[in-house]
């Protein structure tokens, strides 16, 4: 199993029946493929739909139905579409149970940076700031390092997406829960030892007793 699949599978376990979930562009999008079809999870896309689904086959695309990246999607029976204000009302108003977002950095305070790299990359925040500020639960799904550099750091050097503490970080090495006072190491990936995780992390991790392996479905 490659890193991204591992991350997506582990995140999928966080999603419970009846949940309204928004998956960010990139890695988080993969999560949808690892949710059982009978899980009764509603995926929202911030461009205005609850009940999005992958297009079943070529030739069934509609130019009026895409995800937030502009890629064709389909809709489940019982889907609903609406304008951007309503879409972000669902997000900001606490109706969204979970958002899964990619990250450039997460720090000791659980602060996420994922929308710009000053001087090089200025894509813009899109819906990320609203998602992190408003969702009931924020899960960051990202690789543990980028080009060998740790992405979990003591203090974000990059501009923050929100000052709200995220709820969970899932990487190919570990599951980490930001808590009052620091980052709690909850799980390690199958076959990965603590030293490997600590070596790839640029801040101290809180470790309480035994750290179990990730359950992965």
């Amino acid at each position, binding site marked *: 199993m490659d890193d991204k699949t591992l991350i997506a599978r582990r995140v999928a376990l966080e999603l419970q029946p009846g949940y309204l979930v928004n998956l960010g562009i990139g890695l988080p999008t993969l999560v949808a493929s690892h949710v059982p079809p009978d899980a009764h999870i509603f995926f929202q*896309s911030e461009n205005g*739909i609850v009940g999005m689904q992958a297009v079943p086959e070529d030739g069934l695309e509609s130019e*009026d139905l*895409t995800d937030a990246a502009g890629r064709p999607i389909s809709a489940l029976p019982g889907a609903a579409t609406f304008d*951007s204000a309503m879409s*972000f009302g669902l997000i*900001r108003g606490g109706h969204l149970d979970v958002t899964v977002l990619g990250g450039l950095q997460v720090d000791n305070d659980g602060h996420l940076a994922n929308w710009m790299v000053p001087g090089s990359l200025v894509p813009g925040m899109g819906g990320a700031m*609203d998602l992190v*500020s408003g969702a009931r639960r924020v899960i960051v799904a990202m690789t543990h390092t980028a080009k060998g550099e740790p992405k979990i750091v003591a203090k974000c050097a990059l501009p923050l997406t*929100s000052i709200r503490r995220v709820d969970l970080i899932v990487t190919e090495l570990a599951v980490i829960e930001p808590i009052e006072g620091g980052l709690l190491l909850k799980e390690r990936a199958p076959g990965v030892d603590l030293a490997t995780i600590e070596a790839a992390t640029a801040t101290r991790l809180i470790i309480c007793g035994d750290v179990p392996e990730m359950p992965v479905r």
Partner: protein
Amino acid sequence: MRKTVGIEEAVAKIPDGARLMIGGFMGVGTPMRLIDEIVRQQKTNLTVIANDTARPGVGIGKLIAARLVRRVVVSHIGTNPETQRQMIAGDIDVELVPQGSLAEKIRAGGYGLGGVLTPTGVGTAVEQGKQTVTVGGKIFLVELPVRAEFALINARRADHLGNLTYALTARNFNPLMAMAADTVVAEPQEIVPVGAIAPDDVATPSVLVDYLITRKH
């Protein structure tokens, strides 16, 4: 009372330097014929308020590529490298606004509100230059209303009076923008007789629409 107008005549009403709201999300729900005609008539020095600048060659991306835009107010430019290039070269000003805040700012402009208080962006770069208000011990940003001289709207259907419906995720910012501009120009995919759209199905009431683009010149 006659609202129908050919595409050339509609675009001729837009002066150089105009401030335009343009519906759509990554090109989906963007009034494509209006965009093409603006390029053809070479309207210059435009300000564009929209969710994004789409991709090169798509929707608003065509206006960027034709170098007709001096300033954009958008939630992201990450999908259009040409916008980023022009920004770095100093040829285009980019104001990035969180997507949910952008939706509320446009709505506030159309709904006669002096602004809204949002948690999105508190403690981030987005806070710069903004008033904050504390409500119940929690800090919120005051996001001010946005309006434009013209709103260019893509609709699924219009009736002869100008009542509009939208399709699936092509709705997005269109109904919000139809409230927030001095002059509203709608490009419907289909025009139907009065009564063919039931009152409950109207998303934008006819009284908001100034011009309706006909199928032909």
